[in-house]
């Protein structure tokens, strides 16, 4: 039992991202309202962004900014990578956030078009209308 709890606590970032991702997927699969599905999609994307950000973190590390690093001082030899959190995943996620925002925009625009066409965002009502035609 202690082992399980130890695994759970030591890898808590993974549990958080997996639960968030499953919440998002669940919403996308089961929700009837299209906007709720879009929200689920966004939660899923955010979960993956959080996963990336968490893997850049290190114990007892600080921001990846070298103090007094500017100017002509030769500071390269003094940098210990272990003292700084890894900034690369964070930078990657800036791009992923932009992608997520763009996807959200396109999805909402399409939802608007769907609403104008069928006067509803509930999937079962839309399919009922389609079947009637």
């Amino acid at each position, binding site marked *: 039992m202690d082992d399980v709890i130890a695994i759970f606590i030591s890898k808590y970032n993974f549990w958080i991202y997996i639960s968030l991702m499953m919440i998002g*997927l669940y919403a996308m699969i089961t929700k009837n309202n299209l906007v709720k599905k879009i929200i689920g*999609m966004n939660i899923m994307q955010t979960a993956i962004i959080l996963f990336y950000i968490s893997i850049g973190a290190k114990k007892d590390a600080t921001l990846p900014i070298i103090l007094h690093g500017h100017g002509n001082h030769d500071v390269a030899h003094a940098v210990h990578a272990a003292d700084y959190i890894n900034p690369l995943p964070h930078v990657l996620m800036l*791009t992923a956030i932009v992608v997520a925002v763009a*996807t959200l925009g*396109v999805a909402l625009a*399409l939802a608007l078009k*769907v609403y104008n066409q069928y006067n509803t965002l509930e999937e079962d009502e839309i399919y009922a209308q389609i079947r009637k035609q």
Partner: protein
Amino acid sequence: MSEHYPALIIVIPLLTAFVIIGAGWFRKDICFPLALVSLTAALFVSIGLLLEVLEHQQIQYKLGGWKPPFGIAYEVDHLNSIVLLVVFGVALINLVATRALAAVEFSDRIGPFYALYLLFVTGLAGIVVTGDAFNLYVLLEIAALTGYALIGMGKGHAALASLNYVFMGTIGASFYLLGIGYLYLVTGSLNMADIAGLLPQLYTSKAVLIAFVICMTGLFIKMALFPFHTWLPNAYSYSPNSTISLIAPLTTKVMIYVMIRITLFVFTPTFAFSSPMVNTAFVWTAAGGIIAASMLALSERRLRRFLTYVLIAEVGYMVGGLWLANRAGITGAILHIINDAAMTLCVFLVAGNLIYKLKDDSFKDLQGLFRKMPLSMAAFVVAALSIIGVPPTCGFFSKWYLISGGIAAGQYLFVAALVFSSLINVVLFFRVIEISFFEPFSDHHHHDEEDTRSSSEAPVGMLIPVLLVAAGLIVLGIFTGDIVSMIIQFAIPEGIT
């Protein structure tokens, strides 16, 4: 100049897209020539790249001069130079062929349409040319987002179909991103060649296995392999006619290229093909997909919708071909990327021509078409023969490689699925040909003689590209030996026999 080709191939369509958005505000008639010029230039660059690859084996382009693995590298080898040529060839032919259709469908939005068109091609070309796993994700989303927009502009239930495509596409891309995340976690690198070099010590790691499984799941959703195909038929059958013949031939094919790239050049065959059980499982999934999609195609009564199911069956061919894990199978899969792009382009262009004339594509409207549109239907027959797999059309040769690969690997279920799918295709296409060969039942005497006799072929501008592609199917078939011996055999890693 020529050393910048790998970057130019992205930059030319990307910048032109933005120029077109601006120009479209002032002059609508300038959008098409701009798109035409930029895609022609990009096609010439891709031919230049192919010739350079034939000479130097591999080209590496460091964006901004940053050395990989720190910077993003664009790498062109035999595998992606041929896929690049396919992407730009299809995009250019379709641009010319659908000019009249696009003018009808997007009369007031022609600027945004051509801008999205070029951005879509940019995304696909970027996916093919990049050597960086994360860069691939970003370009994947560029291609996908523009694809959603292009499909969503259609009539009927296009918006709803496109929204469902957004959901599935986002799940697929997110899974790919997650898989790359796990790879980054264990290797600390995003450059594909660098990851491939670092992985061998980590093959036993569970994280690598998870990364592989998640990446493949994401890609299977994106390429619409059978159980994950549900988004494709609706999205493709409601999309505008001028975009479908761009999206249908390219999207699934480029995703299959990504699968081949990730499997053979990131995870490498030693890891990916290490377990015969896994190979068999993938091949059986593909075989099941081929059979199921062929059966589903039988029940459709509309031309474009039935073609989408044929497309899903073709995806199974290529996935199965890769997982046969032998040289013949993978040759067949890569060859089929080229051939299937050409075949799909041909049938969807013909469908576009028919819809331009008939305004509808249900089977009952096709009656008497051979008399009305003899040349378009001739192109359709050639493409049908190619999809069925009749020599000397190109479809026969890729199917030949796939079947001989299947026999060599002992995967007789896959061979049976291929043969079965060919038979179903015979039924499917000859049904269409039969319907369109005979006149409608209506009484001829009451009709105006002029009306039934006169040929009402599509405009010349739409017809010539279709006939060119149809002739190309036979030319591709005749030169299959050269394509395989000069390009494809170098695209497959040494270790695979």
